[in-house]
Structures are given as structure tokens and as C-alpha cells.
């Protein structure tokens, strides 16, 4: 289980004519949780979108399970096993939980729908309880879990999460982190962007630190967590200056 699932080779991506992530390289190993941290505007979300393919890709390579995927549209990447849960509310608010899960099966053949939904609702019994509730009426934390479940239906081998704990109370943040851990325990590789750095680092194996679109630091989560430079990185100071 130690071969890289995802390899980024000097990825440059952004929006319009404006590259935000520059020359970013890293490798993610199977079954690990990696936290991507950095100040506001460091390019974390842009990097996740680039891996899923919903923004403009300038140059570099994204190798997923030994296959370059950077020219594929998002749905093709999804089929190959890259799942992405964007920031903010990302479900169908006027559909019931059940219908949302059925939409999650969109790319699966019809015969597999019931099995997939059964598997995910076993993982999150809550969703079965709220089956007929409209997604827009769930609490923030429940919606976040629904969104993760919608992506997990397809059994992705890589899960990209953009700020899953945003706007949640500490109690619900704890729920979400516990859920991420359970997902990773099933063998899924997770790359998560988090503002709750301490909470996220605690459940992570690796940490990636971004500054101004570039990789600034990479290492085991336990080491990064105690590194004094992180405080500076997150509070937006000039890292080179502080380090020197």
C-alpha cells in the first residue's frame, strides 16, 4: 500500500489568464490522510479544483494510478476514482436525501445503485433516518456528511475535501473529522483543505503547507503541528522573514 495514488508534477493552474497555483509537486500514498494548509488566498482550493478539473490547467502533470489525467474532464476523473467535495453547500437542496444519493449514483450503472446506497447508508445510518427530508432542511453538519456520502457512493480511491468543517460548531467539526478518519480507514486516500489546522493535523498522516501558490513545507503531520513556523504561515506573515 505504499505506491503513490496521486502524483502532481509541477502543476500550474488557476482561473482565466491568472495562474494561482504554481509549480506544485507532491505525491500522495494510498490510504493516507493529508492536510493542505496555508493562509487565505494561498491557492489551496485552486489546487483541489485543478486535481478534479474544474478550473483552468496551465501546465504540469497530474498522474492518478499511473495514468495522466490532467486533460480529462471532471466526470472522467470521477470515473477513474477521484472524488471531490467542494467548499460550501454542495448538494441539491430541493431534493430529498434519497434523491440526492440517487444523483450521487449518476455515473454508475442502474444495477449497482441499490448496493452502493446500501453500503453508504450503512456507513452513515443518519442518512437512512432522514431519507425523505429535503437536503436544504438538514443541519450544516448533516449536509456535509450527505455530500461526502454522495461522492463515496462511487468508491473513489482518492477523496478531495475542501474545508469540510467550515461554519460548523466545534462539536460538529469533531463529527466531521471522525467521519473522515472512518473513510480513510476503508482504504481511501484523503486530501483535505482545512482552516481548523489543529483538528485536521491531528487526524492526518501528512501535512502540506502552501504559501502564495507554492509548496512551502511538507512533512509528517505530527512534526508540522509543532513547527513554530506554522503559526506564522497561518496568521499571514511573511514566512521567509520570520524563519530568518
Amino acid at each position: 500500500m505504499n505506491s503513490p495514488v496521486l502524483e502532481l508534477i509541477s502543476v500550474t493552474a488557476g482561473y482565466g489568464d491568472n495562474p494561482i497555483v504554481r509549480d506544485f509537486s507532491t505525491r500522495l500514498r494510498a490510504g493516507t490522510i493529508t492536510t493542505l494548509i496555508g493562509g487565505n488566498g494561498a491557492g489551496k482550493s485552486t489546487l483541489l479544483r485543478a486535481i478534479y478539473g474544474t478550473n483552468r490547467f496551465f501546465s504540469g502533470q497530474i498522474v492518478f494510478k499511473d495514468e495522466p489525467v490532467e486533460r480529462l474532464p471532471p466526470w472522467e476523473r470521477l470515473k477513474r476514482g477521484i472524488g471531490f467535495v467542494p467548499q460550501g453547500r454542495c448538494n441539491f437542496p430541493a431534493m430529498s436525501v434519497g434523491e440526492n444519493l440517487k444523483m450521487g449514483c449518476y455515473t454508475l450503472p442502474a444495477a449497482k445503485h441499490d448496493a452502493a446506497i446500501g453500503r453508504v447508508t450503512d456507513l452513515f445510518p443518519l442518512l437512512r433516518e432522514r431519507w425523505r427530508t429535503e437536503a436544504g432542511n438538514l443541519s450544516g453538519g448533516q449536509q456535509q456528511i450527505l455530500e461526502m456520502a454522495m461522492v463515496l457512493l462511487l468508491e473513489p480511491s482518492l477523496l478531495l475535501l475542501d474545508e469540510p468543517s467550515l461554519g460548523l460548531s466545534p462539536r460538529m467539526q469533531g463529527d466531521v473529522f471522525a467521519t473522515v478518519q472512518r473513510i480513510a480507514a476503508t482504504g481511501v486516500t484523503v486530501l483535505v483543505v482545512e482552516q481548523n489546522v489543529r483538528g485536521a493535523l491531528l487526524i492526518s498522516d501528512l501535512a502540506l503547507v502552501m504559501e502564495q501558490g507554492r509548496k512551502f513545507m511538507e512533512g509528517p503531520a505530527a512534526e508540522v503541528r509543532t513547527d513554530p513556523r506554522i503559526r506564522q504561515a497561518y496568521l499571514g506573515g511573511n514566512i521567509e522573514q520570520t524563519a530568518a
Partner: protein
Amino acid sequence: MTIDAVYILQLTLNGLALGLLYALIAVGLSLIFGVMEIINFAHGELLMLGAYAMTFALPVVGLLYWPALAAAILLVMLAGLLVYEILLARLRPDEFERSILITLGLSIILIHTVQYFFTATPRIVDTQYGFDGVEIGNIRITLTRLIGAAAALVAFAGLYSTLRFTQFGRAMRAIAQNREAALMVGIRPRVVARNAMVLAAGLCGLGGAALAPIQLVTPYMGQFLIFKAFALVTIGGLGNIPGAVVAAVVLGLLESVIGGFFASAWQEGSVFVVMIVALLLRPEGLFKRGGMRVG
């Protein structure tokens, strides 16, 4: 007094038939707006194409109603596909004004091309049913009218279950509700937009073909209907499909009843008055995206 009751019943039935027809167009507009955030100005012309297709298909199949209807619907669906692929696929979702102007151009082209080849002379269509009708008491309804209304009802039932129970239809609602979430679950927006356009065109084809034996077929028949449908979606709100159906039927009834008792200017004017009132009452509630609902 019995005469009056019969008269009102007759007006009511006419109104229902009329309303169902408006609803066919309005629902198509709603679908397209929900999925692509654009307005198809040439929607009425698709209906007109359906009517013309019916007039030309009927003699070919020996005046048989159903095969001609099927042929007309298929032809209009094909037209819808072409319109999407050639024109609409190039638009981005935020180009609302541009979509109106492009489809306005298309509408002009279609009307005058038809007029150029087939002249503006209204056409009368005969079917195997001729002017056969059903009589209930003192009320007489022609068979073609009855079939038209029934076909529209069946079409709505079909549309409802498609949107509600199939992945094909659900995907359209999904895109209307949250574009980013749709990408998250692997929906391809262009494929869904194309499906919505073809489906909406099919509804128009049905409307046009069902209308052909009932009223005169002219190149301009679509224009008046589309204006009504526009007013309707302004009143009922886009994206709310049962709402559009209800509003359409109510409007049909209103028009029919007002037209039965007052000058026809009032009949048409009532639509506009209702619309202005609706705008005053809830200016921001109309055209709200993010919630194509089916129930």
C-alpha cells in the same frame, strides 16, 4: 339559466384546453431556463414547425392522426437538437441578453423561411376524424380537440414522472439546483442541456401537431403563443413546473371566460394586468433559480 350554465361549461372546457397548450410551452421554457439560464425566444416557432410538420405528414400517411403526430414530434425534436448544437451550446450560463437576441434572430429566420416557402395563407388540416365530436348534453367537443387535450395531459404525466423518477430527468433538476454539485456527482452539463432542449422541443412539437387540426396553421401562430407563455412564466415563476401548469390552466380559464363576456381586448389585457400585479407583489420571487421543483 340553463343556457348560461352550458355556456359557462363550454367556456371552461375551452379554457382548459387552451391552458394546457400554454402550459406545454411554458414548461419547455422553464426547463430550458432551469438548466441553461437562458430564454429561448424561438420556442413558439418550434411549435409552429410542429404544426406545419403535421399538415404535411397527414396527407402522406393517409390522414391517419397518430403516425403524423409521431412524425411531427420527432421532427421538432430533431430541430431542437440542431438549435442546441449549432447555437445554444456556445453560450455560457450568464449570457442571458445574448441568448434572447440570438434566439430572436432564429425566430425571425424560421418564421420568414416558412412564410417564403409555404406563403402566409392559413392552412386547414383534415384528419381521419374529420369534424367528428363527442356530445355531452348540449355541449359538443370535436374529437381532435379532445385528443389534443388528452395528449397534453399524458405528456405532462410523462414529463412529471421523468423529472421525478428517472436519472435522466433528475439530472435536469440537479443542474438547476446546484451547478457545482452536479459536477461533483459527474453530471455533464452540456449533455443535460441538450436533453432538456430536445425534451422541450418535443413538448412544442406535440403542442403544434395537436393544434394543427384545431385551428388555422400560419407562420405566426407560434409568436402569439410564446408571448402568452412568457407572461405566464413571469406570473408563475420559472423553475416551478407544477406552478407553471396551474398558472397556465388558470390563465386559459380566465381568458376564455373573460373572452366570453367582454370584448377580446379585455381578454388579452387581463393577462398583462395579472402580470403587473404579480410583479408588484413579489418582484424578487420571480425567476429565482436554484429550485426546479416537481412537487
